[in-house]
């Protein structure tokens, strides 16, 4: 019988073995090696049973040395395939028995050939293993059944049926408990973890291909909330790990790629390059990252070369996207109808002006008559009726290609990974293109010295269509461009909103998409190299140097055909802004592993790190280009040059860190970490901080009373506490800065300076203390896995941009003041519902509950309002409430005809909005504002199911989110007012004497006065269930494709964003258009880039 001891999905682990065994069984020795190295063994029990007891005494030797020593006098030999060591009898098993026919074949999995797979004739002890190419040959009886088994994979039985070639594709079994996860400055087996770490492997990442990593992470992990807030190519994503631990300071997680801090954002990592992503969530895991750990840490391990014969893989997809939802707006006839009604209503709202004839010249009939032939026919009916949402969007065709070449020997491996992605946006002309090349290399130069390097080059070119929020931009004009003005007139000129009097400025969105070129070009070059020296048995020294440079070149050009009330060259403009970033990190650490008295295992990490970032940037602009020909290529050709700008920005950090892992009998696990950080960003009085953590875990399933339990296969309890910091406030915040401004004397520029910040030499980091309690439970041989965590995160000494009395000359100052609390529950359940040879059904469910509360703000707990402050300050921070509450007036409906006298108390008429007079003082003032909602959800999660029938797989991925509200500010210009621009079709339900039961005020031109504020009518329910992805795949049988020399071939069809169940009336409830303006902008939107629905055809090939 072939046994698998454990299923270790190894990534990196110690290469050094220490053994002190007397009269030990072979199995015991192998277990011990396995624990230390992460390698796993497979062997035939019969073979091993013939071996005698082993006496071995080695320390800090290589694996090979240890095994040679152990098997010195034994009838055993071994062979290493990747991380698997196959132990077998010294004589050749395959040749042992005569047989009828000779068969051969290849065994593979979805990634390629599988070496070391046991191939056995059912009902006998005869068998063999596959070689490094996954190939085997065996003599068998013609009617035999072969049993294929391999660690971590489901065992398969295949009848030979007279064939001479039998190819098999192995499917992976549940292996969650045996994973190795990357933690800061090292790795750990998942079973040994004391903290809360979520992991995603490359296979899961590839299930739903996206152009950016953050979108692929969405919904994969409990406690990790990824919002894709725009439908633009590449999206505008926001990741929050375990809530919001800061108000004014950055709450983005820290990215670390292959041990080096990644400064260029998750969206510039090619998802196809990723081997695994490990997310450190609790403070005991993140404390090793000190001042940068408070928002969680995303550790990315990229793919590297693999030992074995060379492999070439090609993965690609082509997709078609369309606008998922269209929002009803007024068509031409409806617009005219509303405009006429509005005009007629003037006499009610300004009787004096109406009587005086002030509005006679604004009569729509006059305006239309003047435009007969151009916009209207003889009967004053509109000539055009444009659906701008359709006109400005398209079926976007995107493609993505990845080619990789990998290979290696026992000591050396290499990998070359190439990517081309062209992601078209559904708004005309918008796109994101990426070219990526990565080269990796690892070499065991000496038995004690290993070196490796990665070089990565990334180019991204993006053309956006949704720059800016508010003004004359495309997403706004999709709704607000009027339908009766054409895209182009018969003479080819663009229709403009100002072609009709009384409409405000604004260009048709098709013209904007064509005539405005907003480009973002990014070139990232990054490289890192490491050196690993084995100093003494169990003691390793590792030095890593990483450098990332990025050049950001952002040209912008607008032709004279848009931007003004008429077409004219004076509206043309061009600008270029550039930012060049250099980051380097040099990190050195020592790792020491030792087992004492066979039961005490310790792992110690001690290290130091230096980080340095520098940015130089510049910008130049010009207006009134003499000719559109020049675009942004010749700024000198503009007649109204702007003032050039440049900037310098730099920070440094130096750190010392250490960690101790202690493990007693695999039952009790303890982790203690500490990090001392010094950062340039803080006041002269406070440059250094210390961040400790401790965690304890108990593997109850290792106790005798559970060891042989048939139901509970794994059970572990975890508890941790840690302190982390947040230093992400940008640079120069503690200083009294003198900045430059411009004035004019004598018709010439005069430079001025002003003190722009008050200065705070006591400015320091904010500190987040986090408690975490969790357990993991495996049932029925791990067919059911449950992981749950509860956490309490308290941030104190908030780096608050605290308001100052403006009498000081300053608005605010960064101060360490205030407290914030996040608490939550996270639950992940993975189950293997059905598991038969031909059919499997796996489910994965995760849900996160989150509660955020402000405990203290400033000295007197004054309210703070964050941006945006559209219409009024509404993004409220108030003690006792969740951060980012929406604050405004409650609309009770509209005043009815019978309520004229009550309405007049407030200076209102029937038909006006009825606002709640909360304090009952007979007037509507800011004192009547109430809490209307909040942007952060109560809970979110994912439910996914995977079905596999023979070679066909089907995956369905549902995402849900509840408890948050959306501040739909578009109702301000799209509903509160009419006539100046197009409106939502909802205004057809506005108040009229015969339609009084409505909360939309009576139509009237905005210029006679209308009501608009932050109203409850702008706050919408943000709950949703999204059919995020449905995938149907087919993996070609190995025996079929091996004829064309392929080891793997899979095709799949996928639908993304298939449906959204929501009450929200906008394009998509996952939305924010104010991403840069403050931390709490989720759900606040003023015209977003619509979301696409995408159908995708993909292909995975390996040879």
């Amino acid at each position, binding site marked *: 019988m072939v046994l698998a001891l454990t299923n270790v999905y190894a990534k990196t682990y110690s290469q050094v073995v220490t053994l002190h065994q007397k009269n030990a069984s072979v199995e015991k020795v192998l277990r011990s090696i396995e624990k230390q190295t992460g390698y796993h063994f497979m062997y035939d029990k019969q073979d091993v049973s013939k071996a005698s007891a082993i006496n071995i005494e080695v320390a800090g030797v290589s694996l090979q040395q240890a095994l040679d020593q152990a098997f010195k006098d034994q009838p055993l030999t071994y062979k290493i395939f990747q991380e698997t060591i196959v132990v077998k009898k010294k004589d050749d098993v395959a040749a042992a028995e005569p047989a009828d026919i000779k068969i051969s074949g290849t065994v593979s999995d979805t990634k390629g050939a599988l070496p070391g797979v046991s191939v056995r004739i059912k009902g006998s002890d005869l068998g063999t293993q596959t070689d490094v190419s996954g190939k085997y040959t065996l003599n068998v009886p013609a009617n035999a059944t072969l049993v294929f088994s391999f660690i971590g994979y489901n065992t398969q039985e295949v009848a030979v049926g007279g064939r001479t070639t039998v190819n098999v594709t192995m499917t992976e079994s549940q292996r969650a408990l045996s994973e190795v996860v990357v933690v800061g400055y090292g790795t750990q087996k998942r079973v040994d973890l004391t903290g809360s770490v979520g992991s995603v492997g490359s296979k899961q990442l590839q299930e739903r291909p996206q152009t950016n990593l953050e979108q692929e992470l969405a919904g994969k992990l409990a406690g990790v909330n990824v919002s894709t807030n725009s439908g633009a190519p590449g999206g505008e994503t926001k990741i929050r790990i375990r809530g919001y631990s800061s108000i004014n300071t950055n709450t983005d997680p820290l990215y670390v790629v292959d041990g080096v801090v990644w400064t260029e954002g998750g969206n510039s990592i090619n998802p196809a390059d990723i081997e695994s992503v490990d997310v450190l969530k609790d403070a005991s895991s993140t404390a090793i990252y000190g001042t940068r750990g408070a928002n969680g840490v995303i550790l990315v391990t990229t793919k590297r070369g693999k030992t074995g014969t060379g492999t070439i893989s090609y993965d690609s997809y082509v997709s078609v996207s369309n606008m998922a939802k269209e929002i009803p707006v007024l068509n031409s006839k409806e617009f005219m109808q509303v405009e006429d009604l509005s005009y007629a209503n003037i006499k009610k709202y300004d009787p004096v002006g109406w009587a*005086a004839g*002030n*509005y006679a*010249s604004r009569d729509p009939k006059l305006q239309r008559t003047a435009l007969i032939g151009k916009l209207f026919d003889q009967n004053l009916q509109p000539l055009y009726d444009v659906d701008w949402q359709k006109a400005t969007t398209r079926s976007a065709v995107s493609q993505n290609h990845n080619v990789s070449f990998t290979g290696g020997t026992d000591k050396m491996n290499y990998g070359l990974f190439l990517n081309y992605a062209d992601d078209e946006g559904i708004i005309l002309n918008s796109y994101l293109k990426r070219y990526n090349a990565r080269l990796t290399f690892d070499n065991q130069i*000496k038995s*004690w010295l290993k070196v490796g390097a990665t070089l990565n080059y990334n180019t991204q070119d993006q053309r956006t269509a949704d720059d800016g929020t508010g003004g004359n931009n495309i997403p706004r004009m999709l709704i607000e461009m009027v339908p009766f003005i054409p895209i182009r007139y018969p003479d080819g000129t663009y229709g403009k909103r100002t072609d009709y*009097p*009384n409409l*405000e*400025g604004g260009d048709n969105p098709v013209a904007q998409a064509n005539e405005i070129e907003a480009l973002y070009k990014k070139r990232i070059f990054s490289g890192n190299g490491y050196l690993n020296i084995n*100093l003494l048995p169990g003691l390793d020294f590792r030095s890593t140097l990483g450098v990332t440079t990025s050049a950001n070149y952002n040209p912008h050009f607008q032709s004279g055909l848009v931007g*003004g*009330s*008429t077409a*004219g060259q*004076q509206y043309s403009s061009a600008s270029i802004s550039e930012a060049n970033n250099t980051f380097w990190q*040099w990190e*050195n650490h020592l790792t020491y592993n030792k087992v004492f008295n066979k039961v005490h295992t310790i792992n110690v990490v001690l290290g*130091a790190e*230096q980080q340095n970032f520098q940015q130089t940037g510049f910008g130049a602009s010009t207006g*009134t280009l003499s000719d559109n020909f020049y675009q942004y290529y010749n700024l000198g050709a503009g007649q*109204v040059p*702007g003032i050039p700008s440049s900037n*310098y*920005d*730099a920070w440094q950090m*130096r750190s010392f860190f250490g960690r101790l892992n202690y493990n007693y009998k695999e039952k009790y696990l303890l982790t203690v970490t500490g990090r001392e950080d*010094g950062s340039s960003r803080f006041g002269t009085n406070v*440059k250094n901080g210390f961040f400790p953590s401790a965690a304890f875990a108990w593997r109850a399933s290792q106790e005798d009373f559970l060891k042989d339990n048939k139901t509970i296969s794994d059970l572990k309890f975890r508890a941790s506490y840690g302190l982390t910091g947040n230093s992400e406030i940008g*640079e*120069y915040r503690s*200083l*009294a800065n003198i900045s*430059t401004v*411009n*004035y004019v*004397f004598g018709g010439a520029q005069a*430079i*001025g*300076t*002003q*003190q722009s910040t*008050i*200065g705070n030499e006591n400015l320091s980091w904010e500190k987040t203390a986090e408690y975490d309690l969790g357990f993991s439970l495996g049932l029925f041989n791990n067919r059911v896995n449950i992981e749950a965590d509860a956490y309490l995160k308290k941030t104190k000494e908030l780096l608050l941009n605290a*308001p*100052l*009395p*403006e*009498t*000081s*000359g*300053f*608005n605010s100052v960064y101060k360490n003041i205030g407290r914030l609390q996040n608490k939550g529950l996270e639950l992940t359940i993975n189950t293997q519902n059905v598991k038969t040879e031909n059919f499997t059904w796996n489910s994965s469910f995760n849900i996160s509950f989150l509660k955020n509360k402000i405990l203290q703000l400033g000295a007197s707990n*004054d*309210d703070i309002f964050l941006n945006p402050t559209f219409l009024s*300050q509404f993004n409220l921070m108030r003690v006792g409430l969740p951060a980012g509450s929406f604050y405004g007036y409650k609309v009770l409906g509209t005043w009815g005809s019978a309520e004229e006298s009550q309405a007049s108390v407030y200076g209102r008429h029937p038909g006006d909005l009825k606002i709640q007079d909360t304090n009952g003082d007979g*007037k509507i*003032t*800011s004192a009547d504002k109430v809490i209307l909602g909040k942007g952060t959800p109560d809970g979110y999660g994912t439910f996914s199911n995977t079905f596999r029938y023979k070679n066909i797989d089907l995956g369905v991925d549902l995402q849900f989110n509840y408890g948050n509200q959306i501040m739909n500010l578009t109702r301000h210009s799209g509903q509160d007012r009419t006539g100046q621009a197009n409106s939502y079709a909802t205004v057809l339900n506005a108040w009229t004497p015969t339609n009084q039961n409505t909360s939309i005020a009576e139509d009237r031109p905005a*210029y006679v006065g209308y009501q608009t504020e932050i109203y409850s009518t702008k706050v919408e329910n943000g709950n949703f269930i999204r059919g995020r992805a449905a995938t149907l795949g087919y993996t070609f049988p190995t025996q079929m494709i091996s004829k064309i020399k392929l080891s793997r071939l899979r095709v799949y069809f996928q639908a993304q964003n298939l449906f959204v169940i929501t009450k929200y009336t906008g394009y998509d409830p996952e939305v924010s258009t104010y991403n840069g303006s403050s931390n709490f902008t989720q759900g606040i939107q003023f015209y977003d880039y619509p979301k696409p629905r995408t159908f995708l055809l993909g292909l995975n090939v390996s040879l």
Partner: protein
Amino acid sequence: MKFNLKKYRIGYSLLILTIMVSSCKKDLVEKDKGNFVKSNYFTTSTQARTFVNGIYQKLYLFQNGDAYGESPFITLELFAGHATSLGQSVNNGNVIKQITDAVNPGFEDVWSNSYNAISNANIALANIPGIANFADADKKKLLGEVYFLRAFFYYHLVRLYGDVPLITAPVTITSPDLYPSRAATSAVYDQIISDLKAAEASGMAETDATGKVSLGAVRTLLASVYLTTAGYPLQKTANYALAAQEVLPVLSDYTLFDKYDYLHDNAHKNQGELIFQSNYLVGVATNAIPQLTVPFNLLVGAYGDHLGAMIPTNEFVASYEAGDLRTVERQFYFSSYPSYKDGSTIIFGEHALYKYFHLESAAASGQSDENWTFLRLPEAQLIYAEATNEVSGPTQAAYDQVNKIRTRAKLAPLSGLTKDQFRIAIWKERYHELAYEDKAYFDMQRTHMAYVVNSNTFGDPTTTKTEQNIQFKPQYYLWPIPQREISTNSKLTQNTGW
């Protein structure tokens, strides 16, 4: 020679660590190569000049505008009640209807920018005197500009908000002035007068054609301060004489333009009758004055927006005497104009302010760099006439000054009026000549009288309705202290009625 790499592996590791730790010794001081910090500034006379230039930049605050049509220079006129605002600004509408409140962002805009200017002036006054290698005379002149600017902003604050915190030294995070109380109006005026006297004694030039503070500006402003303090709320009537005396030299330093066009073109900035302006230049700083004042959404110029946010009432335009040149089309006002788009004539159906129409930008890029005028000769002339009249009745010199303005407007000279009649005539002249230049509301504050255009008389604003059917609420004599300041500083109290 064979070298045993392995033997020395511990050594290499130690070497790497040593290099690293020693490289870490570099201090963690933050260096910004792009900007100074306070601790390394104020070392040269050029830095001093530059810092003072920075205070001037805050003069732009009155023209801060947005696409809704809100801007302090408009808010000030809406308070006076002779303008309507089309556009879609809810705040403008609330001011006109007198239902606005302390959260109206315009109130905070003026407050915060004024105090920012004062803060920088305080920093300049504290740090410039210590700069070495800076000739005393030049230093004194420069500080004179700072004194003027501090007085200028305090003068606006004290009139708009009443008792305001009086801060005259730099504020740091630890200074008690960080959370100040309100100072009495009279104390603020004392500081203003003291600052203006310091400016007057600084040795600066009589006039300045580049836009810097001149002696003429100092005197005109001080005269305005005296005139104001002679009225409500302080009623120091002795200051009328001081006002007349202070402004007298100004009357001969400046001359009236021949054409009203020169008030708003690029060729005559800081010249002729223009005493003090905020200065603009395309490519450096532009404003939205024309965009805000052209008729609502009628394409009379190359502007992206036509906001119609300050439209004179027809009644006000009709209140000018018959034959007044200023009411002739395209002098102070206009009611039709060729469409920028196709040249066809646009009839506005209302009067818009030609006074602020900027031909240069309307015909070209739509980017306006017309200057905003704070002080000009007619105001000085009318201060002189009014103050003199209060001291000694209508003197010939007083008649001469007002009649220069009337003559230019093709109106008959005034003569033979009683003291009361002359006062009313001067007030009317102020309304008509300085129309929509942010003087009317301040005149209402100091006189407690409003121009009732329908009857061409003056009346108590709190009992007399304007042509827009609005009766002034007493609280509207002052602006509210911005709600944000009340919330941030518990020592501040709100003005009565707000």
